[in-house]
């Protein structure tokens, strides 16, 4: 093989490796050549021998209110808090949180921690959950719909916006709950992936409520609460009554399976900083619900 060709092949390999770590602005315009390098946020003091290794977190660069590359999401805030408490520098690898996310991040060794996974998620090792939220109705306040139940007969006459996840039975829980009630024709799907060239791709669903494109949306609480508070018209959010128990999820941080040391270190901080975490989540308008009763 000629040396030019070898170089070409080598540079490919480098491009693949560099992919995960890039600036979202570059991410949206250029690619890895312009946006190489890890985002390293110094927390601890200058390097000394025996300094702890950085806390390596993988996160989506464009997914508020959870995370973005500018560090504006609540998961960014909580990651920073963890790094501070663990006295480690915080290092990000950015990767869209889609199919293959865990495979390309935790499992491939690009990082050691992700900040949000369901507490019963099987692909990674969840920590003890640090919050619990729910799917909620999102309505324009001026419509005075006052919806609280999927059994409300008025729902049949309304257009209902939902996030569409993908095929292969991947559905948000309200999609299935509505289908089971025979409500299908009045559902409007908004891709959870949205248009990734713009900020906040999943927000299109909440925008649709504000614009009157749909009468009501049913969305995951954290993003519903956050975006509803930022629309130009007042929106209301309301819990779905308990007849549909599948609407609530406890959320954990996640480490690689078997990384017990990091898991317990993270759990210690999450437990000791519980009040601070709850304060952050409330600032982001995350609807919080109490954890379910412990089963023995």
């Amino acid at each position, binding site marked *: 093989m000629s040396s030019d*060709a070898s170089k070409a092949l080598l540079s*490919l390999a480098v491009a693949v490796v560099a992919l995960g770590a890039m600036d979202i602005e570059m991410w949206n315009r250029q690619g890895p050549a312009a946006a190489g390098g890890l985002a390293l946020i110094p927390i601890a003091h200058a390097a000394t021998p025996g300094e702890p290794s950085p806390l390596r977190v993988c996160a989506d660069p464009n997914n508020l209110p959870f995370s973005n590359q500018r560090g504006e999401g609540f998961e960014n805030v909580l990651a920073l808090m963890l790094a501070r408490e663990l006295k480690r520098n915080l290092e990000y690898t950015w990767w869209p949180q889609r199919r293959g996310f865990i495979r390309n991040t935790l499992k491939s060794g690009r990082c050691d921690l992700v900040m949000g996974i369901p507490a*019963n998620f099987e692909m990674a090792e969840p920590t003890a959950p640090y919050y619990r939220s729910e799917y909620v109705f999102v309505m324009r306040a001026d419509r005075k719909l006052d919806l609280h139940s999927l059994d409300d007969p008025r729902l049949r006459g309304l257009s209902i916006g939902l996030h569409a996840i993908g095929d292969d039975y991947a*559905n948000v829980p309200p999609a299935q709950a509505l289908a089971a009630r025979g409500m299908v024709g009045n559902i409007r799907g908004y891709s959870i*992936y949205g248009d*990734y060239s713009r900020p906040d791709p999943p927000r299109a669903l909440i925008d649709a409520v504000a614009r009157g494109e749909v009468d009501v949306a049913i969305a995951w609480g954290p993003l519903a609460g956050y975006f509803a508070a930022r629309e130009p018209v007042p929106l209301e959010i309301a819990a779905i009554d308990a007849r549909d128990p599948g609407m609530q*999820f406890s959320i954990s941080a996640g480490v690689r*399976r078997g990384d017990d040391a990091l898991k317990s270190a993270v759990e210690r901080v999450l437990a000791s900083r519980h009040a601070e975490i709850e304060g952050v989540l409330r600032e982001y308008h995350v609807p919080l619900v109490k954890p379910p009763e412990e089963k023995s």
Partner: protein
Amino acid sequence: MRIRLTYLLAAALCTAVSAQPPASYPGAEWTLPNGDFANTRYSTLAQITPANVAELKPVNIMQTGIPNGHEGNPLVVGNTMYVVTPYPDNLIAIDLGKPDGPLKWVYEPHPDPRAVGIACCDVVNRGASYADGKIIYNTLDAHTVAVDARTGKLAWKTRVGDINLGETITMAPLVVKDKVIVGNSGGELGVRGYVAALSVADGHELWRAYNSGPDVDVKIGPGFKAFYPKDQGKDLGVSSWPANQWKLGGGTVWGWISYDPELNLIYYGSGNPGVWNPDLRPGDNKWSCSIIARNPDDGSARWAFQIVPHDAWDYDEIMENVLVDLNIGGQPRKLLLHPGRSGFMFVLDRTNGELLSAEKFQQSTNWADGYDLKTGKPREVADKRTKFGAVTKGICPSSTGAKEFVPSAFSPRTGLLYIPAHNTCMDYEGIEANYIAGTPYLGADVKMYPGPGGYQGELVAWDPVAAKQVWGAKEEKFPVYSGVLATAGDVVFYGTMDGWFKAVDARSGKPLWKFKTGSGIVGNPMTFTGPDGKQYVAVYSGVGGWMGAVAFPAISTDDPYAALGVVGAMKDIKQYTSPGGALYVFGR
């Protein structure tokens, strides 16, 4: 007028006497993804025979340095071989005219790396077409590039799809006359499937036809004549869906395109419907899981045949359509052979879309017990239809299908279609929590496992006239996930996921030769004549793709539900192979 008459006469003669496919088979060169327009993957080269194939040995091995699945096959034009790698989709030109086949140049398209995070399964590429002095292929970031075959310089580059909306492109484009036909991937993300035609000369888009939505988008007009009433009617791409759901309708085109120059029609299969599960999209969900015939000049649809209405199993029908002319019931017929992911071997009249036979080529197939040839509809087995939240056990084939996209081969000498088949089944075992873009959701808990009979793969030799299997070469450990090559020497080549490259007798299936390559084979064998006048056979080794991705270190084989359930069927693969791509060239 006279010219026209002559042409018609020639066409009529062809129809009457010929058992030839509508395009010439490849010989010394291999310039189209599957060798010819008809997708036969049959080569007229005959130096390698059952008597001497055991003399094959590797004459050149070239590492690509890329660990992802190496799908598709190289092209050979003149004395140059062209290899398209998986992402970053480099085009490597190899000089066959010099000893040891040194590289001439490498063209690097530098696709947008964000496409890697968007591609569903693996960052694969299924190859290129050669035309007009250009090598034309697609890049993962949904562009098509044309590269000067001599210099390696970019001739043009066109953005076809938008990765920001979840579209990628992995298929090999087909050049038809002065147009390049391409299609998109990304059905999992709710994109809307289409084919588009670009100008070979400068890459500008000439037409685009969708596989869902109103007739005007699907390019269904007065010239559209579906054979069966089920596929007739106005705006079925809208009315076979709940309101507006066709907008996220899937039906992508990530497989192969065929072309019949005489009928002037292209043929392709469309993928599974998006974006909801079947409970949420009552209706046939047209034109997902369909075979569609179009006029390549303007994209207008001639006929369509939906194979799987209201798909509940992920039975994409993007498989190859092999165009052959054979006698059925004593009558010469222009046929389209479609070995379906759904486990049936569909034989259609390609002039009008009539279904002539649909028999199981994988006997474990049980989601339907057959097809009604009068209506063109499957006779579904009710308790094998998946339902959200319900346990449905023993569905065959599994979502990976009775075969994957890897293309079969047809030999006009034996009249047999050689199908790379899978024997896997699956259980839908309720639901599990999952997480995308910060949002918890529910997904099916799917477990795939080997089907009955103690084997996972089989090379099936199928007689499309008698509609039955003639022989089968069973592969115990893994599904056959490589394409197939048939030659005039009556040798059939294929590869296995544990890395064996095999030759069998085209008439009997008798094993003739095998060679253990460095990684599992998910590419397609091809053959060509070297500058020395000798016949060579080439294949990529480099495991990957949806099933092969299980060999990647990052995927745990402890979890039978990982990689969307494939691990259950593939848990042994790490014992037998590891990723890492290479081109192997064999000669005598």
